[in-house]
């Protein structure tokens, strides 16, 4: 009995893999080869090269240095513009997200069983998500004129698209047991949704809303495009004149505002979704607890009222606008079929850039995501990484595009780098959240079995969060495919630039065919990614 292990080993026999396991492995391997092959082909096609990047470092460094000496001289003009942006972002986010919350139930398989209805609701939701914000901007400007209303509407639709999709997925993953209990108690579907499912999804929903809110503040360029003003206008002006010191002052301001908002809302969220304080029977607390829901409604209403405060909602030229919108639509619905060959080329370029950019981001985001997670990284590192990621997200895509164009020259490669680095900020944040929500038991079990940090990562953490990581990456891929601006600035081709040109010169039939192309492409991606996920998850 000196070495029990040896005795145990003495009776070994070999166990081959069962046949079905073999084919599954083969299929996974094949999938991997295809994905990797596509990456390799696209990399060659877009002339990705590390040495070019390294050679570009001096010039990129020069830009960074210029960027890190903020000039706050004009701050008095930026602050009101920022407040204006926040107002519009609040309005757009709130309205869009509230609509999305209700709508998400209509698009969730576990709430709507009729296939036809589901098909229609999901279709509309996906369409809204697919339509580029540029097109929304163009339409709203025609109908509602330049200004805040169009800006808010563009943000409403944008927020709706994202929040509805993510929320309906969360609803589909919810535990339906409580819902059944409510049905059995005689509740209507609405009540069941609100009482049994909403509390379950509320934390995630709130984090989606916050996430979109953050985007809405940062992507203030859209507001500029519809003449809604905001912080995007001076930012764009500064960048156009290569006044990086001013641009960085503006961005710092935005950054601070976003951080403040994020911290406050995280605090509120914790208070809202985490346990009640122990039953203290003080009267005001009791009242607060009892009227929590109406108070929350009041809070939202107050925020909305503030966000519309002093904003000029001109609705004068509505009839002229409708007339124009009618012509725009009729143009869009008569797509310019002859553009198809060029369109296909551009779409393919978009796919290549988005694929490589997302791949780059998905890999880069891995370490950052883990460093950002409170439950696997030391607290200071996690907090620091989160702030850093927030900074990465604040750095405008336009600026990144310029940096990489200076580094590696114009073209697809610069586009890939810009898309990739920009996406890291978002992906790593979402990765981190997924890791934080993970069950830590298996990690402990692996540590107890003598695994080192990487072993724990590979066998306890990674397998648990893989599905989330994949769906976030795929989701980001979809966004990157549509993202017009970055890729357009560096002249990398893709579908963004032609769309922008067609919109600017009112060539609606071409807008129509491009839109059709994007919709088809995004739907294909959706289907394909669903298949890939089923295979890997």
């Amino acid at each position, binding site marked *: 009995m000196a070495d029990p292990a040896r005795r145990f080993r003495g009776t070994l026999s070999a166990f081959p893999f069962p046949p079905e396991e073999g084919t599954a492995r083969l299929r996974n391997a094949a999938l991997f080869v295809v994905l990797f092959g596509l990456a390799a082909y696209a990399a060659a096609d877009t002339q990705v090269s590390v040495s070019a990047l390294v050679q570009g470092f001096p010039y990129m460094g020069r830009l960074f240095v210029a960027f890190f000496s903020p000039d706050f001289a004009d701050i008095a003009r930026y602050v009101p513009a920022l407040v204006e942006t926040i107002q519009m972002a609040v309005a757009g986010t709130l309205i869009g997200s509230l609509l999305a919350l209700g709508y998400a139930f209509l698009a969730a398989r576990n709430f709507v069983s009729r296939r036809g209805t589901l098909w229609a609701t999901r279709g509309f939701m996906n369409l809204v998500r697919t339509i580029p914000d540029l097109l929304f901007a163009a339409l709203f400007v025609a109908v509602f004129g330049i200004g805040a209303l169009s800006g808010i509407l563009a943000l409403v639709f944008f927020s709706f698209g994202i929040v509805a999709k993510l929320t309906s997925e969360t609803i589909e993953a919810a535990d339906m*047991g*409580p819902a059944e209990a*409510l049905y*059995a*108690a005689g509740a209507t579907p609405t009540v069941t949704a609100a009482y049994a499912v909403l509390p379950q999804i509320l934390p995630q929903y709130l984090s989606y809303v916050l996430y979109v809110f953050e985007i809405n503040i940062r992507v203030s360029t859209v507001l500029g495009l519809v003449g809604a003003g905001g912080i995007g206008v001076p930012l764009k002006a500064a960048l156009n004149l290569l006044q990086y010191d001013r641009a960085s002052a503006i961005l710092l301001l935005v950054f601070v505002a976003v951080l403040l908002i994020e911290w406050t809302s995280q605090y509120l969220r914790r208070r809202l979704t985490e346990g*009640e304080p122990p039953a203290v029977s003080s009267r005001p607390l009791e009242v607060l607890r009892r009227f929590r*829901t109406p108070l929350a409604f009041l809070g939202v209403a107050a925020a909305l009222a503030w966000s519309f405060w002093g904003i000029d909602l001109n609705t004068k030229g509505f009839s002229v606008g409708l007339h124009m919108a009618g012509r725009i639509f009729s143009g869009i619905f008569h797509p310019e079929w002859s553009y198809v060959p060029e369109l296909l080329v551009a779409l393919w370029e978009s796919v290549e850039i988005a694929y490589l950019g997302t791949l780059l981001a998905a890999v880069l985001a891995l370490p950052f995501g883990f460093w950002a997670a409170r439950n696997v990284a030391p607290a200071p590192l996690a907090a620091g990484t989160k702030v850093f990621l927030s900074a990465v997200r604040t750095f405008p895509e336009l600026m990144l595009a310029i940096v990489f164009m200076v580094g590696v020259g114009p073209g697809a490669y610069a586009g890939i780098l810009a898309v990739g680095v920009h996406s890291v900020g978002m992906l790593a944040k979402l990765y981190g959240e997924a890791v934080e929500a993970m069950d830590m038991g298996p990690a402990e079990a692996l540590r107890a079995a003598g695994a080192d940090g990487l072993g724990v990562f590979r066998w306890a953490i990674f397998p648990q969060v893989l599905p989330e990581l994949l769906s976030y990456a795929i989701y980001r891929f979809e966004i990157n495919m549509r993202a017009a601006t970055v890729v357009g600035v560096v002249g990398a081709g893709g579908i963004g630039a032609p769309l922008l040109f067609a919109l600017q010169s009112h060539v609606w039939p071409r807008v129509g065919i491009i839109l059709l192309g994007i919709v088809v492409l995004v739907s294909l991606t959706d289907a394909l990614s669903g298949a890939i996920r089923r295979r890997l998850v």
Partner: protein
Amino acid sequence: MDAPSSREPLVVFDRVRKVYPTGAVGLDDVSVAIYPGEFVAIVGLSGAGKTTFLRAINRLIEISSGEIFFAGRSVTRATPAELRRMRRDIGMVFQNFNLVKRLTVLQNVLAGRVGYHPTWRVLLGLFPKEDVAIAMKALERVHLADKAYVRADQLSGGQQQRVAVARALAQEPRLILADEPVASLDPVTAEVIMDDLRRINRELGITVLVNLHFVDLARRYADRILGLRAGKVVFDGPVSEATDEVFEFIYGRPLTREDMRTGEVAARG
């Protein structure tokens, strides 16, 4: 107990069949009447149709043919609004408790009251004071009044199931359906829950229909036993008649230690 036959039945199954889309037969020509105040245990092997039987009553599943009546009205032909009114009178307790984990115990119990109020009121969470009183009363009955403001996920499994019982109680129902309410609980806790159900049955006169896997529990708590096999009622009688032979007939095989909640040990003891 009065003789059941002297009163109107509360639940009537009239030649009920349920065939699942897969072709599996859930209920096969079941005709049965349950009387007010009864404590009925439904026993049978896995797949015998116990769950199907219970869920047919409040129409969580639609039956294929036949008709079911609750308190004299057809469940089968009820409109959605009528059905919701009926469901309000039927409490249900699930094996997995089905609480909303993130809500407090009190909020979960108040969920039993939603059938009584218009949608907007429930959406705003504005329950009248009386409802809170009813809910607290229900919690007291299961000895959990002190946990009213604790979040449901902070309770042990047994406590969660007692909250679920309180929720059913808060409905002020005429009938409680319980689908293996103790299958995921340890034996000590299981008894606490079964005790609760019996007390409710005795003291409030609420009819209780409970699916049980374990022979000993069925014997100890029920007045009447309904044996299902392959969707058919193969035994229906007072618990005194439900001998080991009857159970072996219902199960179609000799009893094993797994049919007893307490397993081997009880057999040994």
